[in-house]
């Protein structure tokens, strides 16, 4: 099996893609197909599960087994696929509405149970398919068809919610950043356990430019940082900015200023079991760059494997090899 290698082409099929011209979802689809090729699991052993939404149409465009299911239930359905057959590589593609509105409960439970899924949340901060209502990630005050005077509720931050649900893998990427997208998807697939990837994506029609303040090429390098495990947290157009800790807070500094050198800069430790710093890194904004890349990547007990292991252990000890064995092992009597 290992000898076979795949090309992104192997994960494409003939279906014509039906997103709006300019939709950020196209980039995610491409990155995913590249990542799948790199990961190298056969299309026949790969399953892509989604709910409902523009983003959730994605499985139709990937040449694997796929389920385009019902709104919000992708995490639960994917949990079933993976638990039933842990050998499969299971991806969940979902939107901010699908995953965090109606699907919120299944999502946090999949994360908590640590099912070995690769969950990609395509976060365009809007309900695209239903034509423009605010979503649980829309910012406070956001004006939309269903909030004509602006919302009065704080959004979820997917990183925070993932950690709140005891998540062990979280990464973030931008539709425009194909390289990071592919990288974090590969890392997500390689992580054993539930991986959450937040993809910041543009909806040209109903929420155009929502991520522009960080995504725009002209200042993206200054407003984002791509975290790499083991590397110092350095970023910026000129790679001259870095992050340090001050008290309980993160702070952005400029290398060379105030005597700061690379040595002072935090080294990213995605493997740290305590999530405190990941929590803070996941929440950076404003003066701090938005973190892209793999923020947390910690190994822990994986549900679907543990289920199989428990079954094996019990089976090894049990005399029952069939239902008949079991039934006859009960309190029985003979009628002759």
């Amino acid at each position, binding site marked *: 099996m290992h000898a076979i290698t795949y090309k992104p082409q192997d994960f494409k099929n003939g279906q014509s893609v039906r997103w709006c011209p300019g939709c950020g979802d196209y980039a995610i689809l491409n990155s995913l197909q590249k990542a799948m090729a790199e990961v190298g699991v056969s299309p026949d*052993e790969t399953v892509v599960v989604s709910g409902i939404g523009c983003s959730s149409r994605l499985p139709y465009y990937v040449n694997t087994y796929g389920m*385009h299911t019902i709104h919000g239930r992708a995490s639960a359905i994917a949990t079933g696929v993976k638990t039933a057959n842990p050998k499969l590589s299971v991806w969940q593609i979902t939107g901010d509405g699908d995953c965090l509105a109606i699907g919120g409960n299944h999502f946090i439970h999949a994360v908590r149970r640590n099912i070995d899924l690769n969950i990609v949340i395509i976060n365009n901060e809007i309900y695209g398919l239903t034509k423009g209502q605010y979503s649980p990630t829309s910012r406070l005050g956001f004006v939309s068809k269903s909030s004509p005077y602006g919302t009065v509720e704080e959004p979820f931050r997917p990183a925070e919610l993932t950690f709140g649900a005891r998540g062990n893998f979280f990464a973030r990427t931008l539709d425009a950043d194909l390289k990071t997208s592919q990288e974090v998807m590969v890392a997500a697939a390689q992580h054993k356990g539930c991986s959450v990837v937040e993809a910041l994506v543009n909806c040209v029609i109903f929420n155009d430019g929502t991520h522009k303040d960080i995504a725009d090429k002209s200042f993206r390098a200054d407003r984002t940082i791509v975290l790499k495990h083991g590397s110092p947290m350095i970023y910026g157009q000129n790679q001259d900015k870095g992050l340090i800790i001050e008290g309980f807070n993160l702070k952005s500094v400029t290398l060379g200023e105030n005597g700061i050198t690379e040595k002072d800069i935090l080294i990213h430790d995605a493997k740290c079991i305590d999530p405190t710093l990941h929590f803070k890194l996941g929440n950076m904004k404003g003066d701090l760059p938005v973190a892209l890349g793999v923020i947390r990547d910690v190994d822990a007990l994986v549900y679907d494997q543990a289920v199989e292991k428990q079954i094996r252990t019990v*089976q090894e000890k049990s005399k029952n090899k069939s239902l008949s064995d079991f039934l006859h092992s009960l309190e*029985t009597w003979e*009628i002759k």
Partner: protein
Amino acid sequence: MSDTAKVTSLEQVVIRFSGDSGDGMQLTGSLFSNLSAIYGNEISTFPDFPAEIRAPQGSLSGVSGYQLHIGSKNIHTPGDLADVLIAMNPAALKVNSCAIKSNAIVIADQDSFDKNHLEKAGFVTEDPFEELQLKGIQLILAPISSMVKDSLAETGMDNKSILRSKNMFALGLLCWLFNADVEQAKHLLENKFKKKPAILQANLKVLQDGFNYGHNTHSSVSTYHIDPTDLPKGTYTDVKGNQATAWGLIAASEKSGLPLFLGSYPITPATEILQELAARKDLGVKTVQAEDEIAGICTAIGASFAGSLAATSTSGPGLALKSEAIGLAVMAELPLVVVNVQRGGPSTGLPTKTEQSDLLQALYGRNGESPCVVLAASTPSNCFDYAFMASKIALEHMTPVILLTDGYLANGSSAWRIPSMDEFPAINPPFVHKEMQPTWTPYLRNDKNAVRYWAFPGMEGFSHRVGGLEKDNQSGCISTVASNHQLMTDLRQAKIDAIADVIPELNVQGNPDADVLVVGWGGTFGHLYTAVQSVNKQGKKLAFAHFNYINPLPKNTEAVLKRYSTIVVCELNSGQFAGYLRSKIEGLHIVSYTKVQGQPFTEAELTEQFLTLLNNDK
């Protein structure tokens, strides 16, 4: 009570065990039930749990009951009123005073009829029997507590533990009363308490004490004997409906060669199915206790897509929650077994009580034209058969199947001959095969029964996408084409209709030549059957047809029903099956006899109802 010592032969007897939750009445009842079954009697049992988990000791709300019907033959229900009541305290007496025959034998623990206990049970006088106007009963008032204390005084056990053996004294007494084999009873105890030798010894001693007490003190009293039945040879065990359901699924898994997956969320009275299967890791069963009912069914749908025999178990409110996802399985044409153990509704309703009021929900509780198969089990042990059949139909016809049982079946039990797996038909899911390529599409169907072929992940060259949007009948791609939607709608219906070809025809019992046909479905079988028999015995004519297959209906349904001028549909709801039959078949004259009280029918009320109807008809 009678004065002469003699053994009376009985055809059948109803015994009710009753006491505080902590008194071990469920155990005593099931031990005596097994004892009777081993002896060769037919049995049917039903527990009556208190509403609270652990109500205050001695209180009315804390009374736990267990009804047992033993007989030589024709035992189809736990019986109506009890011939014998074991009442471990005054509360138990009070709660059950309406559930016994006027001349019942009542065995009571004299020690518990003190002022304190009488007050707790809300008696205002000192003579509870008088207060309850139990005039005709035959009372065996034994100082059970004190005798047990005496008997175990030297074991060094503490008082509380000692008193836990009270129930064994009652069991001993019953063994004497029914001339049951104490040695056999001891065997059962030895099995049960294998791992707790101290308790075993205490119980064995008290059991014998109880027997001796009956024998010595009441040697002059009449005891009873129930002839054994000519049961089919085999190995028997005691089975409750929920267990039978769980095991039936395992049987189907073995027969189909597919792993069994259950996604479920606890809910009364269905929880034991999850628990039973969670314990069957030795047989490789996978269970996911999901975060809610929706996740329960969705994990099952995922597992089904991945190639398992997938099931989910629930009760009414849970079925409501699952309705959207059942629609997905209908649309994606995936096999799925949905077990719904009905309870009293609407809403949270009466969780611990039985009812048949989820029928229309099972048939119609989904958006769109969303046909699926509905079956109903009718006895605790045939829950096994119908769980098996539900799985077989789901797998062979690529459809969700809703299996209806109810609280009465779920908790009721009977003796069950463990079948050999050879007695069950093969299960052959319509797997794709290599030769279908390259023209195979996800909705390629078997022309005969409109069933699509099944490919699942891991099968090389068959990768495809399913989903909840309407799909083109040829390519399996999303389609909004008008004619295609009509076609697919018709095909989904045709697929279900075609299942009528593989299910048994409806058969008529009782007196088929009658003018009036009694119709039932599901868990009311035992009561209806018994009542119809009794009416026919009385020289009246009554035919009887019972439905286990609800959708599709057996092929001959219309032909059978049209033979009768009047059809009395009896059910534990407000007339759902009656309405369903009317909606399917024009020109029937249906009388609907219903009861919505959280309780099974009684044989007596049914018999009376039938007689009145037949008399009025004349």
